[in-house]
């Protein structure tokens, strides 16, 4: 087990290093100078040069890369060019929106998908199965931003149950925050839930065809008991992979949804930073997301081991 964890850890670190280089290179070749962006149409060239110097943009790229990476190691992401404030603060402000949103959406999606998938699998071929699968087909096919648009129209503008967007901040109360995140979380979660339910169902059906289910039935377990006691945990392995992927997707992929609901999250930070050529913010946030994804995958791998004892001794 320890060895397994260590092996995964090493590849995690290597991945991070490679990722940081890739991110830096890709972003640095982007055309557009943050200084001239900030100074606008009437700025004079020497003003731009002065600002470049002030922002530390006039040193070599290699030097900037190392400053950036070593900074990150000590938890210092640098200072945003346009916001002029420490990136770690910017990120911290945004994470308290994006992370709860992702978790909320993930919980919603799991809470919807698990029962739906299990129900469909246990009613395989029946009317229940057909309707759940039909719904998931629809769920998978609907672009989430479109769904979000329609939800805003119905629930915020017509019914006025929820506010149309924005985020009051957690200091204004937990309930208010959750309420503000509800519509976004639903728009994010439903398509994911549809995918998850499908995976859950097909993975359960695979399991139901396994010999050990037959053994369980021979012991006297009913179809349902066999499903719950033996199939679900085994079916969890592919489902975990999907959940891991979804979490990372939700964290960054909220970008459009954050736009629709004008939530001050990480996605919108990146989006704004890209258009403002606030390169260092883009680099740091992308790096952070990659880091999260890699760590989540790592966690999923470890979670596998928890679910699947075969992995604990292997490797």
């Amino acid at each position, binding site marked *: 087990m320890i060895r397994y964890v260590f092996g995964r850890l090493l590849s995690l670190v290597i991945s991070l290093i490679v990722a940081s280089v890739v991110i830096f290179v890709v972003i640095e070749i982007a055309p557009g100078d943050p200084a001239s962006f900030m100074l606008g149409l009437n700025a004079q060239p020497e003003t731009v040069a002065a600002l470049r110097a002030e922002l530390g943009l006039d040193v070599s790229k290699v030097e900037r890369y190392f400053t950036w990476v070593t900074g990150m190691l000590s938890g210092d992401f640098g200072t945003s060019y346009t916001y002029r404030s420490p990136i770690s603060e910017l990120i911290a402000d945004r994470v308290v929106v994006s992370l709860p949103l992702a978790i909320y959406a993930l919980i919603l999606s799991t809470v919807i998908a698990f029962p739906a998938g299990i129900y469909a699998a246990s009613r395989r071929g029946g009317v229940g199965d057909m309707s759940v699968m039909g719904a998931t087909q629809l769920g998978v096919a609907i672009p989430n931003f479109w769904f979000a648009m329609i939800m805003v129209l119905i629930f915020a503008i017509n019914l006025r149950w929820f506010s149309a*967007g924005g985020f009051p901040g957690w200091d204004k109360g937990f309930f208010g925050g959750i309420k503000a995140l509800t519509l976004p979380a639903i728009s994010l979660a439903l398509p994911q839930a549809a995918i998850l339910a499908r995976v859950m169902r097909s993975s359960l059906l695979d399991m139901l065809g396994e010999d050990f289910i037959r053994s369980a039935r021979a012991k006297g377990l009913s179809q349902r008991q066999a499903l719950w006691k033996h199939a679900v945990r085994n079916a969890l392995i592919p489902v975990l992979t999907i959940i891991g992927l979804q979490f990372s997707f939700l964290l960054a992929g909220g970008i459009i949804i954050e736009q629709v*609901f004008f939530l001050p999250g990480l996605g919108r930070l990146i989006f704004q930073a890209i258009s403002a050529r606030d390169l260092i913010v883009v680099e740091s946030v992308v790096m952070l997301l990659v880091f999260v994804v890699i760590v989540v995958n790592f966690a999923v791998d470890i979670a596998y081991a928890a679910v699947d004892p075969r992995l604990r001794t292997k490797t």
Partner: protein
Amino acid sequence: NDSVTIAVQLEPPNLDPTGGAAQAIDTVMYHNVFEGLTRFESDGAVVPSLAQSWDISEDGLTYTFHLAAGVMFHDGTAMDSADVVFSLDRARAEDSTNAQKALFESIASVEAVDPLTVKVTLSQPNGSFLFNMAWGDAVIVAEESIADIATNPIGTGAYKFSDWAQGDKIELTRNDDYWGEAPAIETATFRFISDPTAAFAAVMAEDVDAFAGFPAPENLPQFDADPRFTVLRGNTEGETILAMNNKMPPFDDVLVREAVSHAIDRQAIIDGALYGIGTPIGTHFAPHNPDYVDLTANSNYDPEKARALLAEAGFEDGFTTTLKLPPPSYARRGGEIIAAQLRDVGIEAEISNLEWAQWLEEVFNGKDFGLSIVSHTEPMDISIYANPDYYFQYDNPDFQAIMTELEATADPAARSALLAQAQTMISEDYVNGYLFELAYPTVVKAELQGMWENQPTASVDVTALSWAE
């Protein structure tokens, strides 16, 4: 109820009006948190602000400003002539990062005469000096608080900066030690909503009390029809032009530029892209300015004539060029319509949508474009035509001479004449396609009074606001 929530499209990147070009900074900070020697009123008039009065020497070279007494910065320090000297010197310094450094170019020296008197000496007479000092980029800041100004702005205004939830909102609270008249509103929250759908939803759901610069003109009729709201359709200083690269063939040929100008149906663009709000212009000048000359007839919509002119210029079969568009919807939507109109006379304009940073790099700095659409929002900016290196690269010594003369002229009548001459010259040279003056739609709750209708400078002046009983 003494608080308001005002939505605007763009979030300021930072809060230092003297350190960047972003209009969004002024929108929130101008006159609310920071004040200059003079300021703009909502009709564009320049009135005294921190300088209560001033004397101008006979030769127009020396301005003596008399500062208001008892003015305190939000950090409790007093505002005096030293701060004015610091602010102006900082803005014009060698390593200044002021985006409008040109405003200060004519200043030769700034001296503190006594704590409440400042003498500014110019190197040459400047007819627009008081106007220049009203800009957000010329506000008075203090040396003590300058280091953190971008994130913790300390000004002299009626409102103090209190909180900024980045990506979401900025909160201002009333400054109880304000030297001037106390405003009605206690706290003002600025929310940043750039997505038009979200903007519509936020107003409809009454999440915000006002939306200044509403991004989706197509939704205005719905607000008109709704008794909860009032819609203001104000104007801005934004001349929206179809910029042509005057040094790049075929736009170096005035016939081609004239043809393009006649190929454009302004009204269709205003209707299609802006749902009817916006005033057509025929030159680079704001129509609400008393000195404006209506020259739209010079470039009336006449596709036949445009084809004829193209043929005359040797482009019977038309030509292909680029149309590079920055992000605002007037440009993106207008671009689509203009491309269709140009296609009609045989000009194939290939659209590429750029982000601002890219647009600045490629179009503005790189001058690598055929056509572009952009709104020039600085007030009184016809002088950009005197700069041959400006991105559309209009190089006409006659025009440059007019501008030099204008700079040195203080007499209003003479200025008017010169401005009329300048407007006509660029219109007849078809330097750019002149489209419309950008409108500024504001949606407010019916009970909220005092919102600026027009935008002589980017600002949401909270001091003017109050709730009807």
